[in-house]
């Protein structure tokens, strides 16, 4: 029975995976990929399927597991954000050589903008480096179809395939018709073949040759894949300008040309399979056009792969911006510029610069993201700055990156770098006989993802710093996924809980204390105690676990007793609370001339009662 529902792009991908008979889906959360696995779980439960799902501790772990499932003959997938693919790249490069049995699809979600990422890197380039095919969907419906295609290609050619949806696919919503889903009946079997599954360098050379041969055959297949690679040239007609586009930019180009009624005089070649590029099809398209504008996100991939670059207008010729999202208005303007250069008539429906000028002149305040009212990270950062004001603050990826608003975060490199950079800072200064305090902050989920290897290394190499694990008992930023500490698995079932304390002790740390950061005084006292341990010749790394549940995930537990906080007339407008505590519920009332509490926003945590140097923040 067919029904119609609105699917989030990531839900459409989940649907595609289950329609394709995928029996294992692994993932580590990261925007914009985080909802794929929960959507798989939702569908698995509603349709009564037995697909295995897991939140793995990181992306490499996720890919290794999915790869193993593939070589037992089952279809498997693993999902991550683009920077997660960096973590999984060791696995990816090798898996490409070894090949697959059952379909293996890696879904790596890109974030042009970037909206919620460290980089704007293009997963299609990673596919090129790894020599695996990559598909680039334009909208949720196509992403759903391409999952099936990716599985089929993976099985036919025995190679992993990457699906690269960008954020505007992942976080799009679309009405989609779908029917019932069925379990796959494939059973696991493993045929030993050390020359492939445990190949030594000599065999790797052979496997590399096989891979290169596969890519040639896949390219031929892609040339004829008219559902996803197509153009609208009229036979014999010549055009001053054509457009080659893939992914999200294709959908934008399509809508613009259709709104403007220009489909007939500006032909478009849509490329759904970026690599291997259907080169013959591209040549055919280019031979009918004087110039070709290439529009792709976020890097140059199609543009590099085109054989004849003489006609190309793109990033290499500065016709397309090399950073930032290609928003519809950006694409509109760059098409117009290309039309102008080709002496073709311009598009007509764009807006002038007036509105943007107007908005600029309004000098609107920029609302930066902040930690939520009541967030325990805020309390921890406040205590850290009070206890160790001159330290270098290394931090990490998660909500607590926002500690930078409070001056309590100095570095954010990549997952786990709070610890590894603390080690590097310590030794770099120690080499000069300088004792530089370093206070490192990392979230619980990030610690499970990439913290323990760095901590072991730092202990082993006798680095000295204070590590504060901000344990809010959830992966918060990406939408509240469980961590291994909870013993709750991706499908809600019970798993074995692994407490942070045990891992930290296992890494060789001898100073481990647990505290609730809402108790700022105790945390400050502990940081000072930890500092003594760090400086003691017989001491070492000190770890404080600052444990308080996330307010969004655990509303009632986070604030068992709401405190009614007000600010008295003792407020001298020193701004200390606003600058150093940075709670969104504290703001300056221009009419009253002092700081007040926004009662609608206040969580009632009461932590700010400890903050005012004048004692003007009190409980009513």
């Amino acid at each position, binding site marked *: 029975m067919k029904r119609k529902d609105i699917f989030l792009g990531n839900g459409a991908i989940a649907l595609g995976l289950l329609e394709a008979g995928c029996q294992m889906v692994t993932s580590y959360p990261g925007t914009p990929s985080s909802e794929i696995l929960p959507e798989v779980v939702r569908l698995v439960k509603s349709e009564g399927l037995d697909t295995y799902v897991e939140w793995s501790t990181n992306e490499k772990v996720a890919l290794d597991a999915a790869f193993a499932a593939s070589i037992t003959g089952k279809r498997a997938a693993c999902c991550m954000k683009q920077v997660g693919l960096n973590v999984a790249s060791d696995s990816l490069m090798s898996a490409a050589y070894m090949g697959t049995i059952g379909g293996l699809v890696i879904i790596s979600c890109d974030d042009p903008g970037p909206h919620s990422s460290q980089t704007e890197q293009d997963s299609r380039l990673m596919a090129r480096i790894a020599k695996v095919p990559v598909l680039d969907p*334009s909208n949720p419906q196509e992403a759903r179809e391409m999952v099936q295609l990716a599985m089929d290609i993976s099985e036919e050619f025995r190679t992993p395939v990457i699906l690269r949806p960008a954020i*505007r696919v992942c976080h799009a919503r679309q009405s989609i018709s779908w029917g019932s889903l069925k379990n796959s009946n494939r059973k696991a079997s493993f045929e030993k073949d050390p020359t492939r599954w445990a190949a030594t360098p000599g065999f790797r050379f052979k496997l590399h040759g096989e891979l290169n041969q596969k890519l040639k055959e896949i390219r031929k297949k892609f040339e004829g894949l008219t559902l996803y690679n197509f153009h609208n040239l009229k036979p014999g007609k010549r055009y001053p300008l054509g457009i080659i586009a893939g992914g999200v930019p294709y959908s934008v180009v399509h809508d*613009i040309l259709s709104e403007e009624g220009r489909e007939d005089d500006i032909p478009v070649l849509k490329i759904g399979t970026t690599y291997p590029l259907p080169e013959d099809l591209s040549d055919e398209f280019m031979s009918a056009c004087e110039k070709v504008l290439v529009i792709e996100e976020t890097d140059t991939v199609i543009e590099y792969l085109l054989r004849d670059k003489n006609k190309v207008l793109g990033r290499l010729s500065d016709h397309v911006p090399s950073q930032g999202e290609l928003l519809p208005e950006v694409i509109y303007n760059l098409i117009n510029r290309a039309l102008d250069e080709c002496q073709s008539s311009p598009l007509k429906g764009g807006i002038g610069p007036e509105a943007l000028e107007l908005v600029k002149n309004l000098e609107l305040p920029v609302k930066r993201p902040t930690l939520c009212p009541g967030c325990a990270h805020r309390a921890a950062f406040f205590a850290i700055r009070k206890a160790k004001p001159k330290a270098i603050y290394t931090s990490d990826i998660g909500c607590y990156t926002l500690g930078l608003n409070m001056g309590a975060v100095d570095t954010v490199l990549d997952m786990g770098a709070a610890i590894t950079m603390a080690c590097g800072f310590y030794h770099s200064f120690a080499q000069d006989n300088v004792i530089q305090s370093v206070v490192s902050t990392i979230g619980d989920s990030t610690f499970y993802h990439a913290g323990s290897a760095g901590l072991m290394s730092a202990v082993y190499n006798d680095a000295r710093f204070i590590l504060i694990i901000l344990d809010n008992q959830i992966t918060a930023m990406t939408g509240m996924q469980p961590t291994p500490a909870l013993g709750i698995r991706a499908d809600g079932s019970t798993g074995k809980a692994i407490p942070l304390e045990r891992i930290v002790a296992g890494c060789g740390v001898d100073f481990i204390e647990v505290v609730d950061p809402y108790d700022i005084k105790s945390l400050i006292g502990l940081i000072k105690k930890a500092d003594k341990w760090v400086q003691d010749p017989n001491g070492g790394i000190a770890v404080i676990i600052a444990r308080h549940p996330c307010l969004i995930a655990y509303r009632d537990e986070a604030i068992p007793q709401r405190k009614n906080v007000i600010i008295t007339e003792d407020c001298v407008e020193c701004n200390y609370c606003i600058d150093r505590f940075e709670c969104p519920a504290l703001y300056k009332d221009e009419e009253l001339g002092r700081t007040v509490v926004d009662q609608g926003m206040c969580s009632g945590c009461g932590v700010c009662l400890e903050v005012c140097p004048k004692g003007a923040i009190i409980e009513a």
Partner: protein
Amino acid sequence: MENVNIVLCGLGGQGILFMTKVLAQAALKKDLKVLGAETHGMAQRGGSVISHLKLGSVEGSLVRAGTAHYLLSLDENEAYRNISLLAKGGRLYADAKEKSFPRPEVKQYLDSLEIVARSVPAGKIAMEMGSPMSSNLAMLGFFSAFNEGPLNHKEIRDTIDQISPDRFKENNLKAFDAGFAGKTDKRG
């Protein structure tokens, strides 16, 4: 039906995603084709948030500048920030004080494009009801009171009734009805 483009904006935590969901679901029930785009991740922690919703036959999920028929904003400044998205003859609904909205320089721009601006103190309405997080529903109620979009008041209300989690349902409908009652046509 011609394609209809709706943009919803505000700040992280105000419930823009739920508003989008309500309108998308209501459109689906009318058998309209729905495609939209949302903000997730870092920006949800209090930064600018924007949702795009396109009803009709389209391929791309983002509303292009100058093509939005309706802009609903839960914050006055965010309404201004996204003003360039509005099409000629569009409609702007914002949570703002009626007296000072829109700012004179903005009004001049809106008038030049025949855009009608309407304000409702959605946040205040929600606060007075004792559920400060419901300004999104009050705004939807206000929007529905004008019966201008492709979705009418009843269709939107029924959808809220249908998709609200049980523990929020009563409050959601109350906030929606209060917003509906807050209709004040600035031109009328």
